[in-house]
């Protein structure tokens, strides 16, 4: 009797241990990136080397821009403080290796979402935070007013290793015009070469053209040609293999966009906790358990909206008020005629 009691208690103990271990394992969301981020207490964010409006550091080293705001949103959601981000300026050449090797955990660097990048480069795009297209910039004095005015032998300045190089080739091939590509690694070198007259035209995403024009000697001397030669959906990317982290980054971005859709701003977020609209209540965290599903606290979206603002606030602050692109164009809510239509946070 004692022998079987002993056996039974051992059996009970092992069952309890197993169940305990399993619940321990199932309780925390398994994500190496998430646990690493919480442990080091900052988010590692890969950004550009200085593109006004998207990711740019001022003289004191403070980073601002819509891409910067995506990383700040993730920091607010995961760590509760949008300031806990470490920014790594990356060239177009090193950005993908930096992400896949773990040097950064989010690549928020106005990167175009393409099939080959999604499938071949071992990363996942979590969404689009800026709908753009590639264009050309020329000097007003050249007298060229459209890409139909391009002739054989035109020299084109661009960044090396980007979709710009590929699209440029497709464009000139289709028009059967021979061109001279002058490709630099750093965006500043490209701008300087074009500004000095080494190239007849400068090509990159139209938002980049608008932003870089502010850095030129005489911004008014240059015009962006009306034609858009490609789709450039720019968005943040994460590594393959960590779905939990992927969800967190994706829904941080979506939360910002949906907050604008429901009129939640950094100013009125707290007061809307008692709103009549259940979706608003979910977005400010006074209803539902969305945070737990993501592996975060339930104030994840409230922190984002209060500390970073909704998408419209971020756009206005970084791109519209700075004079880069005052008109939101396709980067407006679907209810206002734009392309921003994200899945509902519920």
């Amino acid at each position, binding site marked *: 009797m004692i022998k079987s009691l002993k056996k039974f208690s051992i059996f009970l103990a092992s069952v309890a241990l197993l169940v305990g271990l399993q619940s321990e394992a199932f309780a925390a969301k398994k994500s190496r990136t998430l646990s690493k981020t919480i442990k080091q207490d900052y988010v590692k964010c890969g950004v550009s080397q200085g593109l006004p409006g998207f990711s740019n550091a001022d003289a004191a080293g403070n980073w601002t821009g819509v891409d910067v705001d995506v990383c700040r949103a993730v920091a607010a959601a995961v760590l509760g403080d949008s300031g806990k981000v470490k920014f790594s300026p990356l060239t*177009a*050449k090193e950005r*993908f*290796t930096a992400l*896949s*090797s*773990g040097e950064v955990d989010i690549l928020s660097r106005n990167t175009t979402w393409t099939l*080959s990048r999604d499938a*071949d*480069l*071992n990363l996942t795009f979590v969404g689009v935070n800026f709908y753009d297209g590639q264009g050309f910039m020329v*000097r007003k*004095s*050249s*007298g*060229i007013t459209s890409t139909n*005015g391009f*002739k*054989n*032998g*035109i*020299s084109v300045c661009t960044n*090396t*290793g*980007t979709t710009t*190089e*590929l699209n*440029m*080739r497709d464009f000139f*091939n289709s028009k059967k015009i021979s*061109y*001279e*590509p*002058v*490709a*630099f*690694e750093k965006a500043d*070198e490209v701008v*300087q*070469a074009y500004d*000095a*007259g*080494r190239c*007849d035209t400068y090509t990159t995403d139209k938002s980049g053209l608008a932003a870089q024009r502010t850095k030129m000697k005489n911004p008014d001397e240059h015009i962006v040609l009306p034609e858009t030669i490609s789709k450039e959906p720019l968005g943040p990317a994460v*590594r*393959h*293999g960590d779905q939990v982290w992927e969800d967190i980054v994706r829904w941080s971005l979506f939360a910002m966009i949906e907050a604008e859709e429901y009129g939640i701003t950094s100013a009125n977020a707290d007061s809307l906790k008692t709103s009549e609209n259940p979706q608003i209540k979910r977005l400010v965290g006074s209803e539902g358990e969305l945070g737990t599903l993501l592996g975060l606290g339930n104030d994840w979206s409230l922190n984002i909206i209060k500390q970073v603002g909704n998408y419209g606030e971020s756009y206005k602050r970084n791109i519209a008020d700075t004079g880069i692109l005052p008109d939101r164009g396709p980067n407006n809510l679907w209810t206002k005629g734009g392309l921003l239509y994200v899945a509902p946070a519920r």
Partner: protein
Amino acid sequence: MNFNTLRKSIPQIITIILFVSVIAYFWSNTYSNMEYYGMEFGYDFLKKAASFDIQFSLIEYDGSSPYYRAYFVGLLNTILVSVLGIFFATLIGLIIGISRLSKNYLVSKLAEVYIELFRNIPLLLQLFFWYFAVLRALPLPENAINFGDAIYVTIKGIYVPKFLWSNFNYFISSFIAAIIAGFIVFSYAKKQRENFGKHIPAFFISLGILVVFASSGFIFGLVDLEFEYPEIYNLSETVFNFRGGVTIIPELLSLLFALSLYTSTFIAENVRAGILGVGKGQKEAASSLGFTPGLTLRLVVLPQALRIIIPPTTNQYLNLTKNSSLAAAIAYPDLVLVFAGTALNQTGRAIEIITITMATYLTLSILISIFMNWYNRRIAIKEK
């Protein structure tokens, strides 16, 4: 095997084991990391279409060519700038090195200033200087610096006439035949000089043969040479470009300037060391035989100095070849910019591409040193 041999070989065995385990550790670490991040390894991507164009290429290339063709374009561009750089660096280095030893105070001081200036400023800064300060300051095509309506110097490049041969094969074969004839003349003259003491002006004879052979094509109307001159045209109402002729892009030119001038300083110092290393007695003996200083230098001092000059100069050639990779800083499409830059970024295959690039530079360097070592052995004084 007795105890002593065993004792001596134990450190060797331990070193081998340590070495192998370090390599094995790095290998397995890389492998497990790549698996963790889901990265693939393989060289199939080289056959895929590159989809990007290259500004300057010595062979046929466009965006639909595969990546391995882009690799060859980059490689040829690297070889081009390295060969030209080695040639000019040697030429300038020789002149400056000899000038440094001149009795003329002004000449030797100028050479000294040149050496100190171009040797002590970092190569990258010199490159930036040539590209951004000098060649960027050149005028736009409409105000091009004009040399006889044939050569134009602009910010977009230097345009020179293109040689249009109508029967290039004949010309080239006559040229090669002349060179072979020249070798025969030289070895015949050498035998005559060594065995009978007779002096035959081999140099002038071979020069004459070259002129006769080369112009035979033109005289008999088999070869025709025309020039395609660069001409200016309107890209738009106010923007001009040149077409026709041959374009030398400013990127290539500034890289060539920077590499040649920088490396020539080291070669100049090597030349000076070599010449000073030849015994004073040699110069005195030569002048007592009635040699002018010029002849002494050419026939007595330099051949002996070469043995001292060549090994460190080999080093400089290797340095120049590797330094050509700085092309990435100024948009010259060399191997690093095209392959380890654009191709790496588009395909994401960092490990494969970097290993190929490193292996390529290693091979280039080894080839250069093999050739220089062969030449060094050939001109070494044979003990009789």
